[in-house]
């Protein structure tokens, strides 16, 4: 079973409170913010490696991003993926979920023969949960999202258990298919020292827009149906009273205020 795992490098959520938007370009200012692999994408890699151990085949990690996203791919290789593909080009910049999925689909069709595509259920930095289903549509394959268990009845049929509100849905998928996994599906392995040493000998291929055979107007910002129109301050209507000082005193004052407002 050949599996492509789509992964993304994202700002470390521990530093989210330091991120601001550039008022002019409206893009994220991420100088000084450490980058990590999107956490649930590790679960997708783990799921792929477990399937590869069972059915054999090849696991490829794929990302579209700036040059440093290579680090996330190397981490995927260290976990045990066989090959990595980096889609990196100025022309890809500014892509929304639609253009991202479109580009990933073009690359998968061009470079990565597959039976299964795995994604994370969502990224921590944009969290749209859209790239997976859109990618499936562009690849013209069935999909299931937010999957917490995969049961391969045979190598060609997967019974996926997807998490829904207060319950689950069982979806039967005939391969080729795409699945987005959530964190409940497994416990991702930590790369071993051997795994890390093997990275240097593995293939990490890089492609730009030229190799994809897609017109430039389909890529990046140009290929994105949505864009940022404006950035503005938003204030809730609140009383904004602040208290500081002796803990006992402020606690008592705060409760008195809530009482006065009939909030308790």
């Amino acid at each position: 079973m050949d599996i492509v795992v789509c992964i993304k490098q994202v700002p470390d959520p521990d530093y989210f409170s330091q991120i601001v938007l550039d008022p002019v370009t409206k893009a994220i200012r991420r100088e000084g913010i450490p980058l990590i692999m999107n956490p649930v994408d590790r679960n997708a890699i783990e799921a792929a490696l477990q399937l590869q151990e069972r059915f054999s085949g090849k696991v490829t990690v794929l990302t579209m991003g700036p040059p440093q996203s290579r680090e996330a791919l190397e981490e995927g290789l260290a976990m045990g993926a066989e090959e990595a593909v980096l889609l990196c080009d100025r022309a890809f910049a500014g892509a929304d979920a639609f253009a991202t999925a479109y580009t990933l689909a073009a690359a998968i069709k061009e470079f990565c023969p597959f039976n299964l595509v795995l994604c994370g259920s969502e990224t921590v930095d944009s969290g749209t949960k859209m790239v997976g289903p859109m990618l499936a549509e562009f690849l013209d394959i069935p999909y299931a999202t937010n999957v917490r268990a995969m049961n391969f009845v045979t190598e060609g049929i997967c019974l996926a258990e997807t998490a829904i509100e207060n319950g689950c849905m069982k979806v039967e998928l005939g391969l080729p298919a795409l699945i987005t996994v959530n964190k409940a599906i497994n416990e991702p392995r930590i790369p071993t020292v051997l795994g890390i040493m093997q990275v240097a000998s593995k293939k990490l291929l890089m492609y730009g827009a030229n190799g994809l055979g897609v017109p430039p107007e389909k890529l990046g910002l140009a290929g994105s149906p949505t864009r940022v129109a404006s950035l503005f301050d938003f204030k809730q209507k609140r009383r904004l009273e602040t208290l500081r000082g002796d803990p006992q005193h402020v606690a008592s004052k705060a409760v008195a205020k809530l009482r006065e407002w009939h909030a308790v």
Partner: protein
Amino acid sequence: MVRPDMSRHKEIWVYAEQTAGHLARVGLELLGKASELSDKLGAGLACVLVGYRGEKLASELLSYGVEKVYFVDDPKLEHYQNQAYAGVVADLVEEHRPEIFLFGATEMGEDLAPCIAAKVGTGLTAHCVDLRIEDCDGALILHQTVPGWGGGKRVDIICPRKRPQMATVKPGVFTVPRHKRNAGGKILRVTPQLHEKHFRARTVEVQKGQACERPVEEAEVVVAAGWGVNSLGSLDLVRELSDLLRGAVAGTRPLLDKGLITQDRMIGQSGKVVGPNLFISLGASGAMHFSTGFERAKFVLAVDQNPQAPIFQVADVGIIGDLREVLPCLIEEFRKLKKAM
């Protein structure tokens, strides 16, 4: 003022999600907002309902003042089937070309909407917290508001060229409108063109249970823990406060990520949107992604040690201090109050 283009009758669509003969509440919430948008845009208001034997649901939708219900009816569509649902809804979109198409950001809505957007080649904005029609150089465009980075910022996303303009919205962001009697809308029954290809993914079973705890969105008091509670070593005191006020414990994303709360307890843009009488935030910095989730709360009490934390911009009363010192005192004060009552 620019007059709406009436040369072609525009429509705003709302996807009316149903499971096992019940309409999801979020669909009705969207109808309220969509009706506002339709007035601004001079457009009609329609719903899309997919399922089997949903006549009752279709008429229920009409009672909210919907002009048309496109009702796709087929025994094969009794359960949610992502490919088949996406296929038939995308066909409807291609045929009628609505201006705007709104979905609830439920698990099914989030599974379905992106596939439809990709099929019809348009954009989709996830987890909007507000929707407005604005005049952009003479064109009336849907502004889809989402939280931005850096405290008190929000961002408007637009889809300038492609149609429909599509968005998902979490349950609880908008409120269900009142019934309108004799609204006079009509039900248009659609017989879908289903192919084998539509069932390459096939839902074989849907299990829906009851929530084991009372859902946070129903609680009158919500006590939300932020990453600052880490300093307390456990959620025990947070629970104590919540129990005292007969509230529900909730939290921010770092707490979900570290496994301290469950998915259905995370407040915010990608979690639950609540409107309790009292919302208490303990050790959360107040990112817009989070504070968006309790905009409808009547009163907000916040505790944080960082006086610069944006949480104080969304609090009615804010205590600047260390939770380890303040929280025990707060519990004590609430206990005293309870005794006195």
